[in-house]
């Protein structure tokens, strides 16, 4: 009885043990073809700097190429530059890795080539240190102080004898830094504007970056997201907020064909914050069309069309098309030009008196903000401020006995209905003022506190300053009802003795100064890129206003007006603003010398 039972159980066990269970090893099972291959082929790359041998034995071209060699992806910058350096001297250039790679951007001055007896050439190049181009695309203030770099050139042909055209040249005794000329920066980098939220999260503030053109455009989204994750430029930090701490991009931002995927590891699940991030991304991606799928820790957010998002969330909601005004005989008058809109003076006639210079701004609900410098008693000036919806009829005047000089005031524009504030320079001191024309000094962390000009960007979070003959930009923090200016960043320019400044674009300043003779330059917000606008001015510019073009309002760019030697001019076409442009003035009797319109400005 027991034996068969045992046998039966044993049989079952053996059968089961031998027959089933997951095998320890199986045959390879093929499930079919993998996903379709990515189209092979060349990535669409932008221009890359020429190689060492491209210049042949032409010293000048070779040096130009050498000073361009660092451009491109920072990972291989040292590799590219070392290709130019003679093998025996390569060790002189010490490698840095990762985020420490920084390029010394220099504005080239005069170069002296001296042929030596050993058939090498010594090169002396005068430079102006513009800044450090970091791996994250920002141009930081310069660290190096050299004003001249020396290095040698030798032929790459083996015995150093006859210069072989094809062998090219080598750099010997190279400088121990990566140098990049300003022309190379212009040529091999694409400047990009990305945006960060202002510290009160009410508006987007532009920040300037440089993307190597060697980076394929497919990676643009990836680069932009990395920049955003990396945070704003140092000088901008007081006025803006970056992404939440410890935010990381998970792998690469991918996509193509109008659909982009960004996966972020970001703390906080505030839907409003995520929505703002999407807006930030949409504007930071420039005019990139397509759909954006943002994932926060793999949680997909609703897909957003980038163009629609930009259309629905304007960068500068209250910036209408500009109208030109000027001061004529102590009163503000519209200036009429064909093909341009012009309006009436939004000031009651009784307050439109004794005006020296003025700024009119449009705030929310088309409220008029007026800030004017008016003549007071004893040849002193006062600030007069007034607001109103259609017309400003009451002005508040600054207290005290007035100032010996007051620059043109500027409004710090806001998008909400908070009381507006402005900045003005009076007697070399920067003041903020409110709608009641109360003025409070604003401390500045500058070696020379003698401020001569101030200009506010359209976003109201950045200002440009001229202090002690130097040009600065700084971030503005409007938190808590006050106005504080962050540490100013000096811009290294070719211009000397800047006299007037205004914002010509989101990331460009229009600066009047001197390059031997008075000139007007357009200078990027980091000082690296300069474009001369006028170099043929006969007199010093003491008043300069520009309409800052931006991506929300598409108007002809480069509209600026200035006053030099008591005569007002306008740009595009560049011409003098003569009295015939001034509307609403009585005809000048014959024989009487007409006065000139002065202190022109834009209402926007």
């Amino acid at each position, binding site marked *: 009885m027991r034996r068969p039972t045992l046998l*039966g159980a044993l049989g*079952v066990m053996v059968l089961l043990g031998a027959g*089933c269970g997951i095998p320890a090893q199986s045959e390879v099972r093929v499930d079919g*073809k993998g996903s379709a291959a990515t*189209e092979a082929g060349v990535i669409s790359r932008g221009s890359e700097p020429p190689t060492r041998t491209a210049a042949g034995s032409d010293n000048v071209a070779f040096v130009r190429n050498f000073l361009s060699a660092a451009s491109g992806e920072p990972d291989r910058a040292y590799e590219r530059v070392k290709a130019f350096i003679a093998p025996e001297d390569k060790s002189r250039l010490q490698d840095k890795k990762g985020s420490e790679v920084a390029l010394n951007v220099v504005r080239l001055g005069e170069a002296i080539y001296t042929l030596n007896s050993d058939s090498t050439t010594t090169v002396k190049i005068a430079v102006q240190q513009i800044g450090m181009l970091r791996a994250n695309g920002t141009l930081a203030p310069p660290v190096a102080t050299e004003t001249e770099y020396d290095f040698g050139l030798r032929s790459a042909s083996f015995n150093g004898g006859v210069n072989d055209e094809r062998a090219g040249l080598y750099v010997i005794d190279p400088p121990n830094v990566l140098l990049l000329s300003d022309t190379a920066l212009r040529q091999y980098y694409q400047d990009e504007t990305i945006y960060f939220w202002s510290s009160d999260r009410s508006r987007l503030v532009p920040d300037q970056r440089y993307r190597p053109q060697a980076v394929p455009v497919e990676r643009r989204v990836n680069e932009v997201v990395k920049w955003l994750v990396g945070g704003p430029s140092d000088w901008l930090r007081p006025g803006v907020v970056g992404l939440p701490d410890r935010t990381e991009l998970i*792998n*690469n931002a*991918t996509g193509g064909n109008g659909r982009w995927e960004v996966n972020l590891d970001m703390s906080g699940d505030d839907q409003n914050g995520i929505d703002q991030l999407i807006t930030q991304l949409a504007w930071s991606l420039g005019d990139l069309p397509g759909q954006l799928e943002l994932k926060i820790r793999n949680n997909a957010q609703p897909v957003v069309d980038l163009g629609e998002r930009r259309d629905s969330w304007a960068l500068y909601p209250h910036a209408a098309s500009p109208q030109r005004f000027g001061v004529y005989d102590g009163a503000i008058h519209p200036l009429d030009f064909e093909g341009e809109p012009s309006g009436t003076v939004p000031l009651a006639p009784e307050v439109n008196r004794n005006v020296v210079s003025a700024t009119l701004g449009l705030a929310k609900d088309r409220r008029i903000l007026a800030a004017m410098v008016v003549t007071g008693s004893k040849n002193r000036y006062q600030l007069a401020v007034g607001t109103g919806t259609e017309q400003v009829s009451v002005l508040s005047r600054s207290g005290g006995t007035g100032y010996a000089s007051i620059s043109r005031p500027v409004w710090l524009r806001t998008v909400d209905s908070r009381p507006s504030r402005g900045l003005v320079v009076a007697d070399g001191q920067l003041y903020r003022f409110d709608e009641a024309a109360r003025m409070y000094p604003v401390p500045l962390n500058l070696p020379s506190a003698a401020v001569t000009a101030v200009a506010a960007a359209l976003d109201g979070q950045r200002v440009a300053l001229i202090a002690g003959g130097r040009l600065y930009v700084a971030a503005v923090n409007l938190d808590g009802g006050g106005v504080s200016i962050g540490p100013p960043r000096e811009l290294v320019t070719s211009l000397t003795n800047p006299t007037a400044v205004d914002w010509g674009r989101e990331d460009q300043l229009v600066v009047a100064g001197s390059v031997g003779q008075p000139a007007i330059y357009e200078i990027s917000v980091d000082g690296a890129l300069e474009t001369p606008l006028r170099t043929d001015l006969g007199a010093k510019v003491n008043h300069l206003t520009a309409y800052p073009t931006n991506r929300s309002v598409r108007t002809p760019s480069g509209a600026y007006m200035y006053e030099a030697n008591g005569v007002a001019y306008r740009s595009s076409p560049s011409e003098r603003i003569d009295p015939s442009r001034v509307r609403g003035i009585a005809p000048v009797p014959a024989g009487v010398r007409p006065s000139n319109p002065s202190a022109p400005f834009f209402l926007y």
Partner: protein
Amino acid sequence: MSGRVAGVVGRAHQTWRRSLQVRVVTITLVASSLLVGGFAFLIADKITTILLDSARSDVRQRVTTGANYAAKQVSFYGQAQEAQLQETIDGTVNYLAGGDPQQTSGVVVAITADDYPNDIQTRTSPSANVQSLISPELRAAIADGKVASQIRTGRLTGETTKYLIYGSPVPTRFGQIELYYLVPLGRQDVTAADARATVVATGVALVILLGLLAALVTRLVVNPVRVAARTAQRLSAGLLDQRMVVNGEDDLALLGASFNQMATNLQRQILRLEEMSRLQRRFTSDVSHELRTPLTTVRMAADLIFAERDEFDPAVARSAELLQAELDRFEELLTDLLEISRFDAGFAMLDSEPTDLVPVVHRVVDRLAGLAERVGVPIELDLPGTPVIAEVDPRRVERVLRNLVGNAVEHGEARPVLITLGIDETAVAITVRDHGVGLKVGEEKLVFNRFWRADPSRARQTGGTGLGLSISLEDARLHGGWLEAWGAPGQGAQFRLTLPARAGDRLTTSPLRLVPADAALPFGGPRDGGTLAIGPGTGGALAIGPTPAGDGQRTEVHS
């Protein structure tokens, strides 16, 4: 050892043969084990297949998604040498592995680049050496652009585990890299083992249950059958009042009831027959006794007449002689009847004593010498020279011999009668051979019947009673011996009496042959080198027999 094994096997075989219950239970167990085992195998196999398939489809989906993701991630790079490619691969692997290298799901994600071993390093997350687990065949399949999988056992992060390795090619702009998912099958393995254990336990329990059930049912059936068998044994042993216990109304109860009824009927019949038989024997005995008294009187009168017969006229004297002879026979018949009725009544007693049979044979031959001489039959003896001692009742043995020899002489037809005495360790035997008309086929049993005659019409010369052989048979049986006859037409007959040498012993063999050495073969074949004749028989059949004597005619058959 082999002896013990043989003993065990023998016992098992015996048990198997003897016990219906063991057979039924064994068959049930074996059959149900096979059945349950088969089902268990199927179920366990199915469960394993389902588990594996589900794991496969799961991993397949992950690997497809992962490969798409990885393809997107590396699509920026046009060359395997690009600096950030390795970083991207690291990030991709970490991302696909769930981002957190500390997590312990055990899944290992790996990206390899077999085509670019110098530019791209293999990356896994969590860090493990997967190269040994990914077989060359799998690599070859992936390198061929296929999505493929394989199960392998190995050790990556913890203990040795079975891994489902799924690989997929990841297309890039510069060629192909490979994405592998190594998913431990520990959970599936445990689940499969659990399922298997459950199925086995259930199967074993089922088999045991079936065995017990079979044992129970068989017991229910077998027990009454055993009781019936025992009862039948007792009944056959004469305990006619044995009955089965009948419980309930089922088939077994019906069997018991029928059995009991049969037993009752048999008992009644047997009792009736016994009673009848007893009455019959009583009657015979009574009649014999009752006849004896008048016969004694008649005998005395007849003896008187017979003594005075010389004084009568010859015809009356002849009648007196006839009367005397028939009275002898009548007395003899009466004696035999009484003897038979004693046997029937079971009163016959054996009076065994060690006896030398040789004098007994001589005595019988002497007593029948007169008759033999009269009918001209010579009696030949073949006796051993030594005494033949056996524990027998000499009176009965002598009666048997007298009867046999008398019959032989009577049917001897003037041919010699041979009496042979044989002995071995256990038995003694006496054969009596005559060469008379012999016995027809079947008559060797009939000769022992009471009042049987081979030829009813034949006149009885010696006035035998017809009971002699019956009494002899009873005598032989009383000794525990045998009395057998052989005969063939025309060849005479031989009777053999075999008795145990010691009273009460069982006989197994006889020292002498029943069929005499000179007897013809059953079909009358040739003897002692004689020829066989084949010729036409009756009814068109072929007759095969011995060649007729003195014919001398021979036919040579040549092939």
